[in-house]
């Protein structure tokens, strides 16, 4: 009964109610879509980092990531590869010989990670082989059968002012600690969403680097790609307990910044929405205060004829709630629809894409929000509504019937 009355009262001044409902709807939609955009970016950043640089899991000699010396190869690398190949959770395994070096052209030079890979395996664990924009990936094409082919990112090619077919000199330390170098022929250019990555990673055949380093065999790194990212802990434990003298690190261990980013997103979002809702709360308080003051005589009449203060208080409270929750529900429906739509078509930010690629974000963002957001949002809306209802309801509670009625004269 009270609820029905509150609902009817809400529509007494339809313009005023609609304005506040629209404000809530627009505010929430804006907030959620902006949040979805941030989530989408963060998601893409993580996904692309996993696809190019990190993979889900990497295996190294325990000291390799600290010292990066050439002799720190993974013991029993071949049996680890075979074992990983047979794990049901694993869909890609790529062993790599890794060395840090200096790439130089006639123009300039830059530090790079030279990755010696088995080309067919690399494509199972990373998206770089499928990101070729010119040429091929190390022998997947016939005309790549030159001596010592190398594949570099477009960013590095631009920086060094080189093209496919050009020679590229890479210098590094060999197993004996001597500075050595070799001239490679660029046979392919790749481009990922991260310009930073493209500038600092070059791919050659594992056998080539091994020969240049003077290594008889072995790998420094085994990258694993999983079908389901949530299995990462499980696979890590299996490998650690099965093999001695290695460390397996998940992408979260290798890039804590990315992990914190996804956690930070949640608190950012919360603060963001709290600010929007706080602004809305003032609008709601204002509207309801007006509604109470305007109705002083009527509320006085209700108190006079025998309605308890408690009920009048409840009526105003329900009216405020109805107003905010209507706006809240509309806001969620609108934002849900908009996010779903944008997730389908994507937002093309190619205008800013140069800037974004520095952060490893692609030009087209697919906004998405975790579904848990909606119940949380509803809870926030209700809390906001309750908080905004308190002051106007107390105003109504303070009315004295005789005095309220006298204002009628």
């Amino acid at each position, binding site marked *: *009964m009270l609820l029905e*009355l509150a609902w*009817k*009262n809400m*529509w*007494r001044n339809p313009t005023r109610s609609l304005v506040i409902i629209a404000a809530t709807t627009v505010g929430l939609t804006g907030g959620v879509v902006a949040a979805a955009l941030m989530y989408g970016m963060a998601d893409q950043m993580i996904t692309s980092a996993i696809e190019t640089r990190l993979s889900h899991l990497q295996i190294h000699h325990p000291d390799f990531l600290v010292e990066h010396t050439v002799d720190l190869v993974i013991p029993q690398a071949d049996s680890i590869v075979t074992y990983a190949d047979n794990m049901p959770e694993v869909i890609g395994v790529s062993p790599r010989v890794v060395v840090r070096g200096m790439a130089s052209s006639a123009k300039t030079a830059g530090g790079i990670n030279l990755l010696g890979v088995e080309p067919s395996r690399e494509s199972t664990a990373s998206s770089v082989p499928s990101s070729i924009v010119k040429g091929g990936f190390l022998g997947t094409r016939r005309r790549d059968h030159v001596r010592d082919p190398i594949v570099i990112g477009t960013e590095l090619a631009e920086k060094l002012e080189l093209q496919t077919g050009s020679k590229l000199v890479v210098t590094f330390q060999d197993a004996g600690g001597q500075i050595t170098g070799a001239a490679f022929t660029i046979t392919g250019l790749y481009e990922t969403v991260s310009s930073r990555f493209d500038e600092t990673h070059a791919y050659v055949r594992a056998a080539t680097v091994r020969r240049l380093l003077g290594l008889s065999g072995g790998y420094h790194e085994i990258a694993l790609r999983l079908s389901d990212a949530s299995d990462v802990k499980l696979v890590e434990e299996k490998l650690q307990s099965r093999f001695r003298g290695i460390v397996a690190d998940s992408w979260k261990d290798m890039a804590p910044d990315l992990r914190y980013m996804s956690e930070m997103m949640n608190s950012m979002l919360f603060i963001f929405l709290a600010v929007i809702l706080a602004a809305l709360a003032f609008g709601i308080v204002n509207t309801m205060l007006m509604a109470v003051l305007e109705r002083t*005589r*009527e509320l006085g*009449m*209700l*108190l*006079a*004829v*025998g*309605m*308890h*203060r408690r*009920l009048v208080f409840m009526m105003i409270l329900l009216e405020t709630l109805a107003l905010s929750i209507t706006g809240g529900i509309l806001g969620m429906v609108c934002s849900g629809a908009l996010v779903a739509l944008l997730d389908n078509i994507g937002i093309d930010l190619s205008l800013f894409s140069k800037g974004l690629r520095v952060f490893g974000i692609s030009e087209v963002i697919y906004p998405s929000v975790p579904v848990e957001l909606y119940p949380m949002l509803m809870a926030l809306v209700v809390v906001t509504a309750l908080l905004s209802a308190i002051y106007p309801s107390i105003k109504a509670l303070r009315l004295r*019937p*005789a005095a309220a*009625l*006298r204002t*009628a*004269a």
Partner: protein
Amino acid sequence: MSVVETKGVSKTYHESTVPVHALTDVSMKLDEKEFAALVGPSGSGKSTMLNMIGGLDAPTKGSVSVGTRDLAALSVPQLVEFRLHNIGFVFQAFNLIPVLTARENVEFIMLLQKQKKRERHERAEELLQAVGIADRADHRPSQLSGGEQQRVAVARALASRPTLVLADEPTANLDSHAAENLLDIMARLNEEYGTVFLFSTHDERVIRRARRVITLHDGRIASDERHD
């Protein structure tokens, strides 16, 4: 046994720098089935008197009792319950909830009394019939004329089966035809249900319909006449 009794009631308002003596030492009784008018010039204390009897305000001095109950002994929530079950109110305006229909307004008071749905419907129907609004029962107040709104207010006042109806200038906003019509209805309901009516008014024609006329002057009873 009287329905209302005031003994030495005084009311002084201290809201401004000069205290206003709205009522001074007013003693009077209303007996069962009375149909009484409270008259007097503007500011003579009519509204104040009705507020005291209705338990909307407390006297500065003296006592008010309705039935066997001394109102001073009741707490604020008890006063609300007392008003809900014993007194029907008709004000000059703003009697009705604008978003509810005439019928819903009449039923609302019985809803507060927690009466059953069947009872509410029957009582509302009967009263709306009695005040001649049955055919407009589903109209909202804004769709009714001033006279019709006041008739609905009278129906609402009687819905709770009160012993006493207090009406503060119920005809002030009505033309003479509508005013007489409202008085007819009030008089008939007074006969039919035996409910005591006390109404304040300025209107000569309305005063003539009362069987008792209490005149206030500067917060004191100047005369108290019966015309039976």
